[in-house]
């Protein structure tokens, strides 16, 4: 799964990973893992992130070819 979290984080007033983590009540490491593609967030967290970044889940997370297998 591809994510544009990092790009949206910067577009939303240069938010730091720590600031975003606190906004959605998770650890900074979780934001790092999501941005690196190591962790797929739950539906709840994905919705929270998109809400805080003023976008939609579909714009924030994109399925890749390998995810369809």
């Amino acid at each position, binding site marked *: 799964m591809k994510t544009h979290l990092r790009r949206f984080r910067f577009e939303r007033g240069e938010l730091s990973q720590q600031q975003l983590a606190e906004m959605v009540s*998770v650890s900074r*490491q979780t934001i790092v893992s999501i941005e690196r593609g190591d962790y797929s967030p739950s539906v709840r967290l994905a919705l929270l992130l998109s809400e805080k970044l003023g976008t939609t889940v579909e714009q924030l997370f994109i399925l890749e070819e390998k995810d369809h297998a």
Partner: protein
Amino acid sequence: MRKWDPIFWGATCIFVSAIVLFAVTQNQLWLFLLTGSYLLRPTLASLGVARRLVDERQMSIQYRSGNIAFTVVIITCIIFAVVLAMKGDSGWEFFGMVVALGIAARAFSNVILIGNYRESATRIILAVGALMALFASFHLGEGFSVGSLAEMVPGLAVVGIGFLAKRYPRSIGIVVFVTTAALSFVILRKGFTVGQITTALLVSVPLASAGVGLISGDRGETVPRQKETSP
């Protein structure tokens, strides 16, 4: 990242208590309390008591590491049990109880969390039967005889009941209750010792729970249950 939340302070209290009690009594057994401080957060989160205080990725990691740790503990207990049994030391039964307790606790958790009572019940019955047969087979090491072979029969019969439970859940649910009562009677007939009572509990509690699961059906079952068919 350090979390200064109630769980942190609870774990700190347990940690300090362990050290103080050890210092005062000079009994190393108090140091086992340290595991409590380490396991407090994942345990509370797993029980659903403190979900808000645990990050979802950390929880996912805790589940995975917990599963690995569980497997390691069970395999270690089985190895110790086999080594002691081969030496003729009856202490292997203690490790056998730990294995049974661990498997039973895991099975119970599955039943409650998944809500798939019938499938879980079938697995519990198969696991209990397999373990009964496995532990009975240890007596074969003392010399092969019809008597020692016969001790495996109840376990294998329970496994057979487990397979039938998939096809006739409600009928087998009643059979499981009768079997549980019979097994408890047979086990306790050998004497009301701590070992026998523990064995009876380890066999009867999971089986009785499986019986309840088979009869009650699955949670959230919306389609009408099909009438059981004969083979």
